[in-house]
């Protein structure tokens, strides 16, 4: 038989001014199973809490109902008080007499009646409460960072600097990401590599960071604090321990005409290669698709010239399993190939290039050593046209959203062009200029006003080649929609920033959700921008949406703090308000029939399949099982389950049913 204590608080006069607290306590005292009932001026005060504690001890209470303010205010207070008196904190419930009653109704019988009802609901509910223990989840204090661009680098360093271990994986042979490809950066025009490479080196040398380049996530299991990740380390075909990075092999490799990914196809590389001179690690990999040895079975020049005998033609991919407690995804983005705009002639005319290619042309480390020269004939373009929104904000043919970074980099490109090609003429076709950001608007104004870039508000309908010139047909909407025709030497398309190819598969491996554009979805657009729906997995940088460098870095540091916060405890303590699937004695085992509709309903991928086996190890049935590490306790599955086989602690079927019954009946 329950022994419940009811503690009615006056909250000074906040409650008692409109509610007859004595009557509430008296009525509650008459309910079955109520062993103690009292009203008091301030229940949350020390004497108030002591009243509860001593009643628990003296009367041997099995449950407590505190009728005072909102549980959102003082539930932790009273639960703690109960715990201190030896009562399981989850045997304490609160009736909200202040916010939901005394403050919103006039003094009178009806208000007191309501207060009585509210208390009765909780008295009946608490009879069905069970002692619950907080869930403790151990934490593996190693973070996995996926992606070695600026976001991944920043997140790794920030986590590593809090003293925790980091495993950083990067799919390419070097870390650095898109930022390493950039020439100068807006709005300060400082050299991208100059600010990035020290960080890259720091990553490589940090004692807390283990870096695996040429590596990808194979699979992920587990949950917050306890992930098991399988990492595929793609074969580099070299022994990294022996390789000194001397460069003999890359110099001698006979296959020299492979378009360089780093230079966006504007430069060439060899089959055994280091993507760029400042690469970290600065050790080569063999591109097996283009290597003569792998194609024809002979060559091996690199092996011959290698002074340390580090070449390993028979090396295989390795699958490595690591245990990590948190994951930061920083896989970045890619740009939409502009060939979906045939009218712009990308791919047809060599001098129509993308913004990223222009970065390489403008970069001192690029194929032209920083001189702006046309890919077709190496001439310096005298007239250049930049097209904004080549795919962005174009629901019909491109993507509906704004790629966000283009307005700024176009201004930068035009400015760099003006700085490098004196007397050159540059045009920018744009829809709107979006330069929200510190020093951003000023930067664009500088391009227009100081450097004389011609901004034309309008779109381009067609580009074609004529007599060695690119004819750009556009319109100037500020000039009464007059057609504009420019004979340009070069055209740069600000192509849309889109999610990486394979983002969807990665999201599925990680059990995180993604938006309609395949960018990874944050847990809350405003308040949880770096969290995902899966606890313990965080986002940094442009894998969530197109982001510029400062934003990527800020996100990375944000994610790092989330990881550090998680790692600051040895165990995660979670409220046991989670779902559970019932278990019964054989031969039933559980009333769950294993339809797994709950799996598709769960927002957290917290429901797994459990095999029920008999003593002989034979599979009897499959039932649902809730992973307590992943379940957040929303209860969507509970309302879904046809057989009522799944229930949620703290809001069980019996508790909620009883609340409804108690609300409408005399007890």
């Amino acid at each position, binding site marked *: 038989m329950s022994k419940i204590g009811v503690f009615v608080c006056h909250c000074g006069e906040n409650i008692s001014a409109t509610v007859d607290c004595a009557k509430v306590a008296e009525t509650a005292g008459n309910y079955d199973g109520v062993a103690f009932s009292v009203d008091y001026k301030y229940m949350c005060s020390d004497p108030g809490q002591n009243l509860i504690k001593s009643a628990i001890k003296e009367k041997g209470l099995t449950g407590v109902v505190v009728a005072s303010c909102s549980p959102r205010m003082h539930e932790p207070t009273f639960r703690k008080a109960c715990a201190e008196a030896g009562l399981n904190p989850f045997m304490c419930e609160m009736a909200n007499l202040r916010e939901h009653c005394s403050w919103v109704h006039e003094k009178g019988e009806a208000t007191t009646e309501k207060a009585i009802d509210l208390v009765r609901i909780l008295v009946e509910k608490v009879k069905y409460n069970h002692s619950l223990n907080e869930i403790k989840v151990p934490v593996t204090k190693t973070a996995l960072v996926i992606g070695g661009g600026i976001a991944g680098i920043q997140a790794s360093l920030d986590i590593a600097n809090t003293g925790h271990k980091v495993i950083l994986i990067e799919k390419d042979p070097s870390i650095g990401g898109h930022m390493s490809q950039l020439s100068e950066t807006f709005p300060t025009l400082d050299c991208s590599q100059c600010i990035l490479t020290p960080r890259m080196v720091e990553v490589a040398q940090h004692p807390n960071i283990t870096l695996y380049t040429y590596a990808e996530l194979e699979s992920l299991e587990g949950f917050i604090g306890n992930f098991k990740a399988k990492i595929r380390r793609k074969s580099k075909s070299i022994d990294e321990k022996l390789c000194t990075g001397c460069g003999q092999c890359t110099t001698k490799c006979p296959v020299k005409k492979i378009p360089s990914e780093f230079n966006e196809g504007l430069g060439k590389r060899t089959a055994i290669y280091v993507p760029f001179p400042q690469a970290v690690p600065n050790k080569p990999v063999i591109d097996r698709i283009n290597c003569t040895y792998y194609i024809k079975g002979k060559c091996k020049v690199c092996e011959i010239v290698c002074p340390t005998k580090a070449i390993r033609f028979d090396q295989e991919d390795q699958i490595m399993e690591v245990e990590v407690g948190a994951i930061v995804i920083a896989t970045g983005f890619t740009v939409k190939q502009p060939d979906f705009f045939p009218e712009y002639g990308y791919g047809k005319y060599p001098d129509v290039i993308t913004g990223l290619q222009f970065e390489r042309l403008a970069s001192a480390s690029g194929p032209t050593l920083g001189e702006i020269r046309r890919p077709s004939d190496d001439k310096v373009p005298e007239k250049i046209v930049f097209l904004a929104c080549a795919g962005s904000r174009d629901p019909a043919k491109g993507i509906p959203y704004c790629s966000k970074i283009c307005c700024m980099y176009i201004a930068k490109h035009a400015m760099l062009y003006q700085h490098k090609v004196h007397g050159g003429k540059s045009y920018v076709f744009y829809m709107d200029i979006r330069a929200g950001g510190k020093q951003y608007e000023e930067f664009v104004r500088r391009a227009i006003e100081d450097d004389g870039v011609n901004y034309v508000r309008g779109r381009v309908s067609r580009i074609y080649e004529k007599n060695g010139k690119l004819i750009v047909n556009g319109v100037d909407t500020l000039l009464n929609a007059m057609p504009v025709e420019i004979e340009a030497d070069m055209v740069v398309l600000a192509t849309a920033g889109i999610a990486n190819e394979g983002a969807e598969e990665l999201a599925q491996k990680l059990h995180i959700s993604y938006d309609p554009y395949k960018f990874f979805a944050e847990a809350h657009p405003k308040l949880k921008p770096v969290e995902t729906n899966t606890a313990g997995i965080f986002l940094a940088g442009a894998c969530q949406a197109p982001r510029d460098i400062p934003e990527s870095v800020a996100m990375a540091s944000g994610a790092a703090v989330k990881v550090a916060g998680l790692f600051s405890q040895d165990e995660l303590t979670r409220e046991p308000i989670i779902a559970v699937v019932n278990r019964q004695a054989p031969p039933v085992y559980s*009333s769950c*029939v294993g339809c*797994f*509709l709950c799996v598709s*309903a769960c927002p957290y991928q917290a429901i797994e399949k459990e095999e029920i086996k008999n003593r002989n190890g034979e599979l009897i049935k499959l039932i649902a099982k809730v992973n307590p590490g992943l379940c957040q306790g929303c209860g969507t599955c509970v309302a*879904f389950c*046809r*057989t*009522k086989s799944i229930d949620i602690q703290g809001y069980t079927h*019996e508790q909620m049913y009883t609340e409804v019954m108690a609300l409408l009946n005399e007890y």
Partner: protein
Amino acid sequence: MVDLIKRAKELIETSVVKVLIGYEQGTANKTRALFVEKADDADRLIFDSRCVQNLAAYVTKKEVKEKGKMAIAATLPVMRSIIQLASEFQVNDNNLLVLGITPESKLIEFANLVEVETFVHKYEIEIDARNKEMLDKLEKMTQAERWKFWMDELSPCFKCYACRAACPMCYCSRCTVDFNQPQWIPVPSHELGNLEWHIMRAIHLTGRCIDCDACYNACPLSIPINLLTKKMLADAKEHFGAYQPSLKGDHLMSTYKPDDKENFIQ
């Protein structure tokens, strides 16, 4: 169904399946389920327009499942049921072979459930004209008239649960009505018990019911309970697009679209 008999014999003789579920002549002018376990019994198989019982109700039955791999002579509604059951992990290619009987009464053997799904998807689930008319009639009534209609129709229900037993989708080992802590549905077949049982049944079948009318056909009192599930089918189509059982497991009621439309939430 000479083809079916021949194929059934082969399947049993070669032990591809242990049991084949089909129809046989029953008593009076009824047809009924036949479980062919010996090749000779296959001669009793028949198929004609009277064979409307949804045999898929048997594929989840413990006693039948325990026999081993099953084959089933499946009409279109049966195939639909099987796809829905497969999407709920109740059957799979390892335990079930489908011998389809097309609406033109052609026998068509499927290599796997994916093929069954493809076949099933060729046909949209359509509510027949007579019932559509009945739905229209009910929708045009006032709410009070509908209340009276259902109170009258449901009052004879004595809760024999033949509707549940005949329904392939009611395979739960413990139905909500059998749940008594708390007692969600009153057990007695009084007005409230009947109303809540039938509301719950219809909701549980929403997005799962393939409209075979097995529940109605089974009802010994001919209560038009299938109108409830038909209404849900029609409404789901209007709100979320036409329902088709699908192996993808994108169940109508356990998924959502952020832009689901309604006009009643303030």
